[in-house]
């Protein structure tokens, strides 16, 4: 029996088809094709594109291309397709004109870019023209492909090298790379090098826009060359480069280890002085490195700096990559010409987990790590870096701030992962550093010693360091036998500890006693005796090694050694001492034995009477040289004194000490103080005459008298005269020197040459120099009460970013009075320049410094000079109360300016306010400003914390000033401050303007606003001071207000039309100094810009 429902439903099902059935019945073949076309075509396109890309990648066979697979390529495309909507939304938020100093906008003609981008094999080494915009600045640049393997040129984001013109840098860089590889991890790994005080190229993460479309996140890398050395205050020198890993760089068919083949090296910067060994230095290093004896090792280490190596290895261990600077690439060695030492420059270091060793370290690193002092230094550096998690915090902060700053950009690149190289993440990067830090911390706790003792009247005590960290031996504990001896030294029977210093295995007379005290069966060492650790590099990575120390105990009687007490050299915790089975043979140590190194007992060298030197005398560091009054050195031709120790040459007015040639007319070499062993050396009533400079041990001494890398060396009442052949009479290099009451006569070229040096030149006369009276490079001495006359070139040459204080100096009848070059910033006070060819000259000479000079001249006088001022367009001048630099006839004679704050900053207080030299002045303690802001174009805040407002159209740090443009309507720039002034203070601004109707500065405090209007002038090369007295109070903001001149100034635009030129205000300095001063707004006189 069927149900009624069943009978009802059956006819309905027959008459009305279900919708799938109806769909199936209606479906035609063409509909099926149409329905499936889109997914099938999409799949086919994806697959085809992936195959094509794979084939393209497979053309190359480097590490990256070999790791690429077709499934991986396809998956990357699929993922990117799925992420396309999110990526598009993100991309729409990107603003190439955002106020961020890191954003780089590249504009490259489309066809040129397409040709560069299209064929990965074409156009290598070819430059393409374009422009680089950042902020409101446009720099013409050239671009080219960069990279040593295919990750750099096969993905949708390409690695580039960019170069600017010589006269227009991008920030302080002329050539830099934009790398796509491991952006964030590589940034962190390489950025950390600076935390260890290493010579390391600048690196940043930057978003790059190409032709106004977002191109990707890149790692900005400074390319090392001579300019790279400048921020580190290093002399220009050779930078040797070994980078021969990949095709296009590799020398096929020859030994490819960089440390076995000097012909693989080239130079990233070349020192072409004749004294330089040039490329030969690498061969010298490699010869020593190939040596296997201890003497070879000593020669290798003499070329390196142990302290720096300590920091380098500590850094490489923290980032986990002592490997990538290997035997085939990533080698950069800077040769310091002042010491001939080589300084490794970290390059392309990765972020790796340290507990996964990769391969053997390079030969140079392995040789250095055989030195126990280097290992000990590394441990100390590591301990300092790991203390309280310091380096982990720094790494975390660096990674997260970089990622946070550009979070959307990173996110976008992650959405297209696989199409572009992985950009990494801050979490992962910081985690690697944390992991390495933890691993290293455990290693530093590992101070292990093995101990074995012999028997007999002379007991052998063998200790072997087996841990990562060394140990300090503190005491030896005895037991058994009768109570022996009394405190050491009082009884012959007391136990004594001697060490096998000559490593011959037996006790002999040459084995010294280790000072110790014996009490209660413990032989306590007077000072902890270091048992340095050795590391093994025989296997990949770095592991604890072994080094054995043999001691002899005498006077024990029947007592025996039961244990030793030692402490971890790094942590101070007790060292672990394990037994060592006697009778076995000692295994060879992993490094050189610390006792092999020569130990020198300091000596005192005394000289008196007439000393005839027929060959160069070298005094090592640690020794002392005492020269008696009346001593006369007679030096044979080219004979020199190279003094590494303290020198006390204190003559008297009646009995001066003299350095003279042994043969008239034949110059001797040099008297040179070399290294910090010569710190605090003193020369008084000394005469140096007719020396000629020298080249000793491949170090060039360009002065008759030289001070290299020594501090606080004093010359008083000294006469320097008639040097021949050498460029300088006196040369200070990386030194701090005080020259007082000295007299320089007839210098062959420059009388005093300071290179990267400071100190003071005071009460000194310089007469008849063939070149400059004083020549400064990257130096900051104080030159006071000095008279310079008749210099064949400049009275004072201030070059290469020098910043001296020149006070109360008279420069008379020189070719040029004062010349200021290459971003030098001298402060010239109460100085007189007269009768010279040019009074003051400012210019850009060396393009690497990126600008001209910028002198601040106050209360000074220029008179009787044939040309008053010679200022090139790259240079600027801040002048106040200066007579003789203006273009007026006769020159305006200004009243002296009361600027006690300026004098006080440099510890000066003139007795009388006047323009020109003063008769008397006092030396007072230097008074630092409460606040000082200057501006450097860098990757940090684009405007140094100042915020634009009103009609301000541009506000950026450019050319050492804050540049503010206001167009049509008044503009402001405001900065929040937190000054709690307990007493009156003075705000000092250094400003210049152009096309401005008015300007004023406003200080906002809890008591209201203090405003001060000033005339900004109309010459951007001429700056002036504006001071504002600030009463005590709590200040919260400072604001600059600039009103542009209405519509009068027009300039042609690229379109051919004339556009309104914005009013511009440049702020060089904002300072707040203690003490209220009278209002000062220096009036800028029209400068005499004659050429």
């Amino acid at each position, binding site marked *: 029996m069927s149900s009624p429902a069943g009978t009802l439903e059956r006819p309905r099902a027959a008459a009305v088809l279900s919708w799938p059935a109806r769909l199936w019945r209606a479906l035609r073949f063409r509909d099926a094709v149409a329905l499936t076309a889109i997914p099938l075509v999409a799949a086919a396109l994806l697959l085809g594109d992936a195959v094509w890309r794979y084939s393209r990648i497979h053309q190359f066979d480097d590490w990256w291309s070999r790791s690429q697979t077709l499934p991986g390529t396809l998956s990357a495309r699929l993922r990117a397709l799925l992420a396309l909507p999110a990526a598009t939304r993100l991309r729409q938020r990107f603003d190439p004109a955002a106020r961020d100093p890191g954003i780089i906008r590249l504009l490259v003609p489309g066809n040129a870019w397409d040709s560069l981008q299209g064929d990965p094999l074409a156009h290598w080494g070819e430059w393409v023209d374009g422009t680089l915009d950042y902020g409101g600045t446009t720099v013409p640049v050239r671009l080219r492909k960069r990279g040593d393997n295919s990750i750099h040129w096969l993905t949708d984001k390409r690695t580039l090298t960019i170069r600017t013109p010589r006269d227009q840098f991008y920030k302080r860089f002329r050539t830099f790379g934009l790398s796509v590889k491991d952006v964030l991890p590589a940034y962190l790994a390489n950025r950390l090098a600076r935390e260890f005080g290493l010579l390391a190229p600048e690196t940043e993460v930057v978003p790059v826009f190409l032709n106004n479309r977002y191109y990707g996140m890149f790692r900005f890398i400074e390319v090392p060359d001579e300019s790279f050395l400048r921020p580190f205050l290093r002399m220009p020198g050779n930078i040797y480069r070994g980078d021969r890993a990949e095709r*296009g760089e*590799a020398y096929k068919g020859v030994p*490819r280890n960089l440390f076995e083949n000097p*012909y693989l090296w080239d130079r990233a910067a070349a020192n072409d002085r004749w004294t330089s060994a040039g490329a030969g230095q690498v061969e010298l290093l490699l010869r020593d490195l*190939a040596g*296997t004896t201890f003497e070879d090792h000593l020669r290798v280490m003499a070329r390196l700096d142990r302290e720096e190596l300590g920091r380098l290895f500590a850094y490489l261990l923290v980032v986990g990559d002592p490997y990538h600077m290997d035997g085939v690439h990533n080698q950069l060695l800077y040769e310091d010409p002042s010491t001939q030492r080589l300084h490794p420059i970290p390059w392309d270091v990765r972020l790796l987990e340290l507990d996964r060793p990769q391969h053997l370290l390079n030969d140079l690193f392995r040789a250095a790590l055989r030195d126990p002092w280097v290992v000990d230094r590394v441990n100390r550096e590591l301990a300092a870096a790991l203390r309280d998690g310091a380096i982990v915090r720094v790494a975390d902060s660096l990674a997260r701030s970089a990622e946070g700053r550009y979070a959307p950009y990173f996110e976008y690149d992650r959405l297209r992962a696989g199409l572009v190289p992985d950009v990494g993440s801050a979490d992962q990067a910081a985690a690697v550093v944390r992991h390495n830090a933890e691993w290293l911390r455990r290693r530093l706790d590992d101070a292990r010693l093995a101990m074995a003792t012999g028997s007999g009247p002379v007991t052998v005590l063998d200790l072997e360091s087996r841990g990562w960290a060394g140990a300090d031996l503190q005491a030896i504990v005895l037991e058994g036998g009768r109570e022996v001896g009394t405190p050491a030294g009082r009884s012959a029977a007391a136990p004594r500890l001697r060490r096998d210093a000559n490593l011959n295995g037996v006790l002999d007379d040459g084995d010294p006693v280790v000072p110790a005290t014996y009490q209660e069966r413990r032989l306590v060492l007077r000072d902890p005796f270091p048992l340095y650790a050795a590391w093994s590099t025989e296997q990949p990575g770095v592991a604890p090694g072994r080094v054995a120390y043999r001691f002899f105990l005498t006077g024990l009687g029947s007592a025996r050694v039961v244990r030793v007490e030692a402490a971890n050299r790094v942590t101070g915790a007790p060292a672990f001492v394990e037994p060592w089975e006697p009778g076995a043979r000692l295994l060879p140590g992993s490094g050189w034995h610390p006792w092999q190194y020569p130990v020198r007992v300091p000596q005192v060298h005394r000289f008196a009477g007439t000393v005839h030197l027929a060959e160069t005398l070298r005094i090592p560091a640690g020794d002392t040289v005492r020269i008696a009054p009346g001593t006369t050195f007679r030096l044979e031709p080219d004979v020199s004194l190279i003094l590494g120790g303290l020198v006390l040459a204190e003559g008297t007015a009646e009995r001066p000490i003299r350095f003279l040639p042994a043969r008239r007319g034949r110059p001797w070499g040099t008297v040179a103080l070399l290294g910090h062993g010569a710190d605090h050396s003193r020369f008084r009533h000394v005469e140096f005459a007719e020396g000629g400079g020298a080249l000793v041990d491949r170090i060039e001494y360009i002065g008759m008298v030289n001070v290299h890398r020594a501090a606080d060396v004093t010359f008083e009442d000294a006469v320097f005269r008639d040097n021949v052949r050498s460029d300088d009479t006196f040369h200070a290099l990386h030194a701090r020197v005080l020259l007082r009451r000295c007299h320089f006569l007839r210098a062959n070229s420059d009388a005093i040459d300071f290179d990267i040096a400071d100190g003071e030149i005071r009460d000194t006369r310089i007469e008849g120099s063939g070149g400059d009276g004083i020549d400064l490079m990257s130096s900051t001495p104080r030159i006071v009460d000095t008279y310079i006359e008749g210099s064949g070139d400049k009275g004072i040459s201030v070059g290469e970013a020098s910043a001296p204080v020149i006070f109360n100096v008279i420069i008379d009848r020189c070719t040029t009075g004062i010349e200021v070059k290459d971003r030098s910033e001298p402060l010239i006070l109460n100085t007189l320049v007269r009768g010279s060819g040019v009074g003051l000259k400012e210019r850009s000479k060396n393009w690497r410094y990126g600008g001209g000079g910028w002198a601040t001249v106050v209360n000074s006088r220029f008179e009787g000079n044939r040309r008053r001022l010679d200022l090139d367009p790259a240079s600027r001048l801040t002048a106040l109360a200066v007579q003789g630099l203006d273009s007026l006839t006769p020159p305006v004679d200004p009243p002296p300016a009361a600027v006690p704050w300026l004098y006080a900053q440099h510890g000066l207080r003139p007795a009388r306010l006047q323009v020109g030299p003063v008769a008397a002045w006092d030396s007072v303690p230097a008074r630092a400003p409460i606040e000082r802001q200057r501006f450097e174009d860098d990757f940090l805040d684009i405007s140094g914390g100042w915020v634009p407002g009103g009609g301000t159209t541009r506000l950026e740090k450019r050319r050492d000033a804050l540049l503010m443009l206001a167009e049509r309507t008044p503009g402001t720039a405001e900065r929040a401050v937190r000054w709690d002034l307990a007493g009156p203070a003075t705000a000092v601004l250094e400003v210049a303007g152009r096309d401005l109707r008015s300007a004023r500065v406003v200080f906002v405090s809890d008591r209201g606003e203090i405003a001060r209007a000033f005339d900004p002038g109309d010459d951007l090369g001429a700056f002036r001071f504006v001071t504002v007295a600030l009463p005590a109070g709590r200040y919260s903001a400072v604001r600059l207000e600039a009103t542009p001149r209405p519509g009068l100034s027009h300039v042609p635009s690229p379109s051919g039309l004339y556009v309104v030129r914005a009013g511009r205000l440049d702020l060089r300095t904002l300072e707040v100094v203690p003490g209220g001063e009278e209002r000062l707004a220096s009036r800028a006189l029209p400068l005499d810009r004659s050429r």
Partner: protein
Amino acid sequence: MNEPPPGARFLAWFRRHERALTAGYLAAAGLALAVLAFAPARVALLGRLERAARWWDDRWTRRLGRAEALVQAGRWDQAAAYLERLDRVFPAQNVRHGRDKERERLLELLGRSYEAQGRQGRAMEAYRRLAAFDSLNYRNHFVEAQGAARLLSTWAEAPEARDAFSRALERFPSHLPSVRGVVRYYLDRGEFIPVVQAYERYLDAFLIQRVTIQAGGQTAVVPVLIDGLPHTVRAVLPAPLDTAGPLAIATGGFPFRVEGLLARPAPRVGEAEPAEPRELDPGRWDLEQVAAESGGVFRPLAEAGLIRSRAPLPAGTVELGLTLRLYKPVDRDLWAGVVRSYRNLLEERGLAAAAARTAALPTAEEADQVIAWLVRPRDEPVAPDE
């Protein structure tokens, strides 16, 4: 009765089976998409595609192999024509390409084919292109130099050959065949100063060989400069010798001389016994694939040639101090030319100094073989593991 046109028949057939065809098409499309969506199937498919892509890419190797066969068969006309075509389409236009070595081989074969055809200009052009293709490869310059020497020399060696030999030497100053080329060039012209200069540059050229020291089953490998000068070498054995045993020295085929031998024993733990190095007289040596020459010089006859001391090293030895002299290979003909040059320049002192640094081998082939051992393909660039 007229036959319907084939199109109409097909249409009729299609209409009749359209539903089945649609079902089949949809199933195939679904399957294709499913294959892509289903990971194991996708991986298998892509794996096959990957192999196919590689096979397709390897056609260049196969084609170069065919060209090589033509050259070896001496079918120069066919070889040249084939290589010309291959040259035009060969993908490695730049040394960064993975087939860079194949491109170098191609250009060399092309040059040889042209040379065999007597087309000297084209042959030299091919050799020049080879040198330009990877200018860092000394072999390319050497091939060019040899080509120039064969094709451009008249009564004396061509200056083009000298220049190319010099470029090869800039990249590999110890390349003896190139040194020979330069020396021959100047000797032919009777210019003896450059001969002496070239030879002294060769002697001074920085070259290191890893010398293998064996004793008691233990091995130490130490780098030694090959410049004909005595070098003191410290070889530390991994562990002290348990028992006395002979010392073996292998220099990888370079002629050498042993001028001194010190052995330092390792002291025993906890025992005071002397650990100072002692001078040893190894007495006579057993030679394995080594010939003894006058003046105590040993000349390996194979790369593995070694000498073994008859007197054993004492038990406990852990460190050896050797004074070794390794000589750069020179053949007797070349050395005779150099001697003549020194003598013609009346440089007897220079000759004596050079002679002390020279151990001449009987033939050029033997001498060249020594350098070839040093720079076998194991030294070819291998991208570092990132």
